[in-house]
Structures are given as C-alpha cells and as structure tokens.
C-alpha cells in the first residue's frame, strides 16, 4: 500500500516535471530584457568587466547580503552544536 502510494506520487511528479519542460527550448530564453540591460550598461554604470560580479555585488546586493548572513548563521549554528571541544565551556542540557 505504502509503496503504491509512493510510486503514484513519484509518477505524478515526473509527469509534472515533463509538462514543465516541454514548452521550453534550450538556447533561446523567453525573456531577456533585464539581462540585455545589464550586459549593455553594466560596464558604464559599475565599471566591471565581469557582469556576474556586477549583478551579484551591485545590482542585486541585497541578495548577497542575505547570502552572507545565511553563511554566517550556519557557521554560528554549527559552532553551537560542537562548542564543547572547540574552546567553549561545558554545558550539559540533558
């Protein structure tokens, strides 16, 4: 019973994914107005030859600030779990 339900769910997901990719064509993006603007004016506005860096650090800087914060929070969380050997005090919360 459980295996049958799992198989049905997986087949439904497969059909959904195939239906999602059917209208797409590789090599011709549907909308590229924003990226054409970045490629055309990115050098004059930000002075970067590397447009990816221009998008990451200038046009979409808020994304990067969230990304840095996520990385920082993950490191802090990992440290909270393993603080006992890495210089932290002994905390027993059993």
């Amino acid at each position, binding site marked *: 019973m459980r295996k049958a339900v799992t198989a049905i769910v997986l087949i439904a997901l497969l059909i959904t994914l195939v239906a999602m990719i059917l209208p797409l064509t590789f090599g011709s993006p549907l909308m590229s107005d924003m990226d054409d603007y970045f490629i055309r004016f990115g050098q*004059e506005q930000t*002075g970067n*030859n590397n447009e990816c860096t221009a998008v990451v*650090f200038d046009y979409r800087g808020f994304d990067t600030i969230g990304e*840095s914060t996520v990385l920082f929070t*993950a*490191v802090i969380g990992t440290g909270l779990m*393993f603080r006992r050997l*890495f210089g932290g005090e002994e905390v027993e919360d059993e």
Partner: protein
Amino acid sequence: MSKLVRFAADILYPVVLIFGLYIVAHGHITPGGGFQGGAVIATGVALVIVAYSYKEVIGWIGKGGLMAREVIGLMGFIGVALFAFLFGMPFFYNYLAGQGGLFGVPVAFGPNPGELNTGGTVPLMNFAVGIEVWGGLSLVILYLLSGLIEKKDQEEEGS
C-alpha cells in the same frame, strides 16, 4: 601523515593562499570573486588539516582568529554598502565607479584588456566577502572535525 605529505603541504599552502587572493582581487575583470576565492583559501586550510593532525592545527590557528575574520568580513561588507549614505545615495549604490581615484577608472562598453583599477565598490566587497568565506568555511571544517574527534574520544572511553 608522513613527512613527505607535510613537506608538500608546507609548500602548497602559500601557493593556494596566493591563488585564492588572486581570484578575490581579480574578481571584477576575470572569472571569480569573493565566494570562489574564499573557498579556494579554505581548501588550503583543509589541506593543512589533512597533512597535520587536528590538535596541532588547532594550536596554530587559534580560536578567535577565524571567527574574527568572519565577523570583520561581514561587517566590512555591510559597512562598504552603508558608506553610500554619506554621499547622499541609496543603499548599495556604487559611489566609486567612474569617479576617478580609487577603483574609479571609467570603462566604456565593449571588450577591453581589463584594468585592475576599475569596479567601484565591487573589489572592496569582494575582499570583504572573501575574508568572510575564508573564516566561515575553515570554521565549519574545524567544527565538524572537532565533533568527530569528540565522538571518537567518547567511544574510546566507553570501550
């Protein structure tokens, strides 16, 4: 590990460090950037940890250095973005690009050989993020390793 591996790690660690800093510093004209360069430097730290034992490495690196690097990187990144308020510009405005001076050589549209003194605030943010990723990834490696060693010690005590 053996003496040969330690010697190779001693030679390779500065090379990896310089290569990572090169990727960070040239992030605005060649492929690369802060995250990638920081990851390369963290790979060098992982190489040293593999070559030597965990207890030796933890004596050299220290507790606070990597965490300080991480915090300074994140605060520097937000600080560079906040400096735009002093110029009366919105948050994350590129106030250095095209002004002349530091990182401010104007660039025209089209392919060019690449000039290091361009990019505005982007190279500064690259450096800040590179330092942050350096500290963060090294800290993650060290934390996971410390957890595994703690577990091994407990098993030895229990058996």
